[in-house]
């Protein structure tokens, strides 16, 4: 007892309860890992179910909180009047933005698992490790979303990345998947290095890793003349650019999307984008907010290039996964547009964009999975031929996803673009708004081409043969997903208001 009293109790124990969801997720992941050891291959469904339950409970914890958590939150809100509450010596933050993003990540991951189950089973990838890796990746994302110091951001990012590398290479006998994993790993490592280097420079100048301290330092110093800070900012943006996959740091995106098993691409192309958005907001807005002039210029260039390159090269693709990869690049350009506006409504617009994009992209990849069967990857655009004659409902859903990606009302993609463009027009960067809409017209061409293949072309004999049977939960989720795109398109107000409120109360 004496020994204990010698150690100064500098932290308040209850505060760490803020991270209850993360702690539960970690424990749950370890449990899934262990439990899977005792599960026979034929009973793998149990592992799947456990993983889903863990994700669901975590989402519930984020949404409802626990008694302790809510008490701390209420107390802190009353004491400081702010909705963002920190724990672990201010390294971890819980604010409305983090909550919304975490719930989105968790729900989307659950959807991804539903979509991929049959795909994994028929391709010898239905293993316990797959689910454990997914859960670890989700944990990484949640840490990224809630990180308040640069170190923690990096930690979360690496946890996510390492899990993703392994997942891309999961089919280890597949040469293309291994190649994709290798590329992803090497470029990811370079990006992490860049990010870390930038962080170390910023640390060197400002003397802190904590985003709030950096921000305080910046507001009292002339930051735009400080060469060190500018250099640090540049490195950080290069790192973020790699992770988000924007031009000119996009080269890995098509190769990885194409090479990875479709189920992994489905995961890779959805939830981590949301985490990457959070990372950008934390680093650039919360940490380096006073350098807005600096990053605004760089981001507008990156956004314009992404829109141009993504949309133009997507036209030339014959492979759906590659087409979606380039389309993702252009969509990330739009996300950057909202952020570079530098206003709260701009960040909210980007947040709305990234969440809805994840929903849409999830549906798009799900249709690719739907068309595949054992020993056959339906990843060519030609595989869509005559889909409306074979599977009218799936074709209709795919049409909704594609029109939404093109930004045609009454699908949700339109409101995402509308809010982002409003933000940049508000910030008086009208050239970029005009450029963005022109590029979205070019983008409409390749989405329309895919719709044309589905609706106006006759199916080839080769593509007409049977698919592997699809479970009811897949079809139900696909319908839900498609109708959500339409419903959010008719009534986008609630989600939009939620994003705006989350941003306003968090920043």
């Amino acid at each position, binding site marked *: 007892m004496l020994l204990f009293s010698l150690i100064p109790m500098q932290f308040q124990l209850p505060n760490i309860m803020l991270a209850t969801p993360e702690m539960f997720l970690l424990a749950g992941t370890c449990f899934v890992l262990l439990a899977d050891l005792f599960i026979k291959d034929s009973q793998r469904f149990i592992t799947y179910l456990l993983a889903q339950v863990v994700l669901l409970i975590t989402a519930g914890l984020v949404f409802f909180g626990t008694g302790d958590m809510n008490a701390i939150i209420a107390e802190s809100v009353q004491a400081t009047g702010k909705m963002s509450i920190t724990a672990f010596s201010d390294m971890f933050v819980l604010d409305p933005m983090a909550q919304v993003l975490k719930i989105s990540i968790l729900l989307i991951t659950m959807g991804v698992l539903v979509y991929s189950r049959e795909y994994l089973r028929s391709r010898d990838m239905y293993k316990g490790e797959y689910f454990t890796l997914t859960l670890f990746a989700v944990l990484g994302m949640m840490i990224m979303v809630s990180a308040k110091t640069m170190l923690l951001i990096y930690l979360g990012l690496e946890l996510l990345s390492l899990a993703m590398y392994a997942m891309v290479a999961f089919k280890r006998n597949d040469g293309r998947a291994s190649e994709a994993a290798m590329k992803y790993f090497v470029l990811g490592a370079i990006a992490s290095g860049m990010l870390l280097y930038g962080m170390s420079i910023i640390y060197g100048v400002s003397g802190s890793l904590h985003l709030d301290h950096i921000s305080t330092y910046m507001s009292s110093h002339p930051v735009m003349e400080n060469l060190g800070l500018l250099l640090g900012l540049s490195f950080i943006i290069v790192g973020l650019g790699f992770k988000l996959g924007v031009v000119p740091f996009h080269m890995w995106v098509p190769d990885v999307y194409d090479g990875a098993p479709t189920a992994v691409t489905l995961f890779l192309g959805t939830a981590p984008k949301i985490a990457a958005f959070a990372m950008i907001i934390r680093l650039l807005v919360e940490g380096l907010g006073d350098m807005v002039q600096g990053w605004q210029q760089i981001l507008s260039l990156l956004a314009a290039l992404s829109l141009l390159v993504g949309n133009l090269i997507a036209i030339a693709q014959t492979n759906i996964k590659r087409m979606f990869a380039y389309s993702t690049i252009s969509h990330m350009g739009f996300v950057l547009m909202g952020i570079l506006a530098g206003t709260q409504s701009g960040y909210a617009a980007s947040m709305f964009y990234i969440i809805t994009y994840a929903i849409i992209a999830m549906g798009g990849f799900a249709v690719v999975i739907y068309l595949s069967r054992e020993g056959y990857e339906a990843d060519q655009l030609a595989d869509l031929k005559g889909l409306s004659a074979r599977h009218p409902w799936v074709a209709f859903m795919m049409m909704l996803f594609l029109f939404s990606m093109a930004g045609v009302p*009454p699908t949700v993609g339109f409101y995402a673009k509308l809010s982002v463009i409003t933000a940049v027009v508000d910030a008086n960067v009208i050239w970029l708004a005009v450029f963005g809409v022109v590029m979205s017209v070019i983008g409409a061409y390749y989405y329309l081409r895919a719709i044309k293949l589905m609706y106006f072309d006759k199916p080839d004999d080769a593509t007409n043969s049977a698919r592997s049977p699809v479970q009811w939960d897949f079809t139900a989720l696909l319908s839900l997903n498609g109708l959500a795109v339409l419903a959010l398109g008719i009534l986008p107000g609630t989600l939009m208001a939620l994003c705006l409120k989350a941003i306003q109360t968090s920043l």
Partner: protein
Amino acid sequence: MFDGYLLSVLVWLPIIGGILTLLTGDKFATRPVALIISIATFAISLLLWTGFNSKGYQLQFVELMPWIETFKVNYHLGVDGISMPLILLNTFTTVLIVLAGWEVIKHKPSQYMASFLIMEGIINGVFAAQDAILFYVFFEAMLIPMFIVIGIWGGDNRIYATIKFFLYTFFGSVFMLVSLIYMYTQAGSFAIADLHTVKLGMTPQILIFLSFLIAFGVKVPMWPVHTWLPDAHVQAPTGGSVILAAVMLKIGGYGFLRFSLPMVPDASNELAWLVIFMSLTAVVYIGFIALVQSDMKKLVAYSSIAHMGFVTLGFFLLFPIMKASGGSSEGALMGMQGGMVQMISHGFISGAMFLCIGVLYDRMHTREINAYGGVSNRMPWFAAFFVLFAMANTGLPGTSGFVGEFMVILASFKANFWIAFLGATTLIVGAAYTLWLVKRVIFGAVANDQVAELNDINKRETLILSILAFFVLAVGLWPEPLINVMNDSLVHVIEQATTSKLVN
């Protein structure tokens, strides 16, 4: 009946009805269900006419509900004298389309009927929307059913035509979106009425005007952005051509009245010469192009472009008239009324022309003029209708085609003799291409065996064409009620268009 939500019924009844039609599958029930819904919608839309108060320009049948509160976007519907007749035109045309596709459409009839019903609802939304974003959503959403209609039921080159149609229109409208957003940042609201009053500098006004010109010019379509129309018309099924010509093109004209003139009056004044130049080019040059067509649908498509040139000419005559008369807008009203009457009348006439061509196409499966000749020998009733509509197309007095063109030409004399002169050439060129078409297709000796085997129009076709003939003559002989309804609203547009919005 339907107090307070009449317009919502007109928007959503066809859309929900379209979904119901889709659910009937391709059984016979599809057609009666679609017909009942379209007739019900038309009947309900008549309540607009009967309940409309033609005194004053204020919006009527207003509905207002918050929709996207983050952007202060409201679900705001309402009609005035300009949009009310257009909604009626739309609901009326859809009934005809359902009837016209009754036996002809054998491939996926439920999807065909559903597309047109959903499109009807969306177009009603375009005309009724009083919020810029709501307008834009309907404006764009309309493309999806049309894209599918041309792409699935179109001719041999339908895919090229439908993608061209979609991209052209999409390209035109995105600039309008940026302009609307810019005005939102200035006015703090997307309500069309607020955008009418917000002050704007000259440079923004010019840019906004140009973006509107692209958006609505593509839709009208105006020379030189008209090239999608012949392709779309030729490839579209008959119903698609009819709705395109009769209703969709009117959205462009409506846009000029609702957006360009009141929102950016100074830029409209500054650039009126451009619109008038483009309109006259459409009237004269496109008229000559129509003359050399060998495909009937293409000929009527080009003739549509020429006739729509009169609409935009009539709307923008206001500014040269003001200049010529030293500030008085007298006479301008006649130009605007002429343009509006021309829109409605063109809706009937072009719809009728495309339906007539559809009648021939269903029997002979060709649109080449050369393949016909002497049709009147085998189809006397059809020939009578065709000649009537052709005469209306050339602007024969007593038909609706005469009223609009005559008023526009009359008004243009007040502006400038040469405008009137060039505009009036349409009476010659239009007569030339239309009558030559009649001569080659209808008159003469029976050209070949196929023509010799033609049967005259059946009851269904007779009914459709008789209704159209009635309206063509009614508007031609007694346009007064139509002009009365729109009068006050047009006066208000002139007032707005002549009030400077420049920031001092």
